[in-house]
């Protein structure tokens, strides 16, 4: 049982850092860049994706023995599309203002390759509990990525965070950051940081291995 607990924890945590869907696997880019011009939009998008991913992972995993292999992709897509429709109408009812800003990008969650990828790679093969944990981890990782990008862009482009002005009237906003090019540039720089981190880690591990070899 001990090992089982560890495995569950691992399935959850890997989506947040080691296999982060955005920063490491570079999936789900379209919603990622399109809606992250403010932190609040990022949260709405991340929340909707969280709901869709966890819901469809649960269903796909529950039905995994009944879905025929040949038509599995279509089945996944229909399940995902159902959840997206629910999320779309829920957001419309609860927060019409945010829904209006996100516009066509809520229905476009269907085409988020990360969601379909998780169904194909994980949920259709593992029991419900692990599938839901994996989905929650991946969705949290996605949410964190969206939020960090949205916060950076809103901070630089608007001088505000969640609509609250932080720098006072003298701040000259860096408008390009909330326009489309800013999305590409910010994500590029973040990926650069991740590359650098990985390179340093590899160098460090190589040094440790070297030291161990010369020591023994």
């Amino acid at each position: 049982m001990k090992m089982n607990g560890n495995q569950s924890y691992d399935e959850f945590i890997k989506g947040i850092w080691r296999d982060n869907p955005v920063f490491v696997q570079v999936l789900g880019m379209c919603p990622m860049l399109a809606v992250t011009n403010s932190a609040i939009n990022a949260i709405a998008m991340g929340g909707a994706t969280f709901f869709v991913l966890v819901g469809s992972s649960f269903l796909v995993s529950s039905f995994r023995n009944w879905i025929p292999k040949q038509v599995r992709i279509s089945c996944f897509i229909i399940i995902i599309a159902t959840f997206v429709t629910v999320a779309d109408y829920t957001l419309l009812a609860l927060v019409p203002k945010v829904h209006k800003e996100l516009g066509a990008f809520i229905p476009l969650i269907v085409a988020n390759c990360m969601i379909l990828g998780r169904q194909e790679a994980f949920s259709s093969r593992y029991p419900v509990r692990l599938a839901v944990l994996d989905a929650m981890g991946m969705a949290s990782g996605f949410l964190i990525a969206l939020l960090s990008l949205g916060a950076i862009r809103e901070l630089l482009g608007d001088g505000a965070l969640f609509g609250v002005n932080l720098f006072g009237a003298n701040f000259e906003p860096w408008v390009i950051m909330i326009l489309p090019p800013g999305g590409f540039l910010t994500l590029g720089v973040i990926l650069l940081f991740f590359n650098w981190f990985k390179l340093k880690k590899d160098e460090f591990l190589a040094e440790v291995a070297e030291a161990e070899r010369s020591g023994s």
Partner: protein
Amino acid sequence: MDNLPWIFISALLVNNFVLTYFLGLCPFLGVSSSLETSARLGLATTFVMLVTAVCAWVLNTYVLVHAPYLRLICFIVVIASTVQFIEMLIKKLSPALFRAMGIFLPLITTNCAILGLAIFATNRGYGFLEGIVYALGAGIGFTLALVLLAGLREESELSDIPKLIKGTAMNLIIAGILSMAFMGFAGLFSST
């Protein structure tokens, strides 16, 4: 009728699907390593977009008036199966064209630019002809962005770039600069 050229230019340059709406980024970053592949993918995407525009119009006019909440599911299922059907048809009728488009046809079905096109066209209430012109503009715009990035990436293969920046990070920064260049086209429409 006079707004047709504007719809075309708008979808092609001002509101370029890739560089302004961030649609279809997966193939944009994934496949754009060589010029020839990019051009073929662009051709296939434009073709699928045209088919999608027709499908979306038919669905909107005859089926979805009674059940708008089924829009998303209908769109995705109909588009996916139509593309599959057309793939088989092209394979039978014109093997040369099929070879040119190759494996890209099925992959394109899950490209968000396709679904995005259908949804945008619906939201703006485009008619049959407007939808087709919009699809043509969007498809050529997609090809343009893809070919531009592929050209820049091929050039960058020959230059001495730090190992750290190579890969997706560099592509994103190139895309950012391209996107800035495309922002210049916004001046084409002073009134809208």
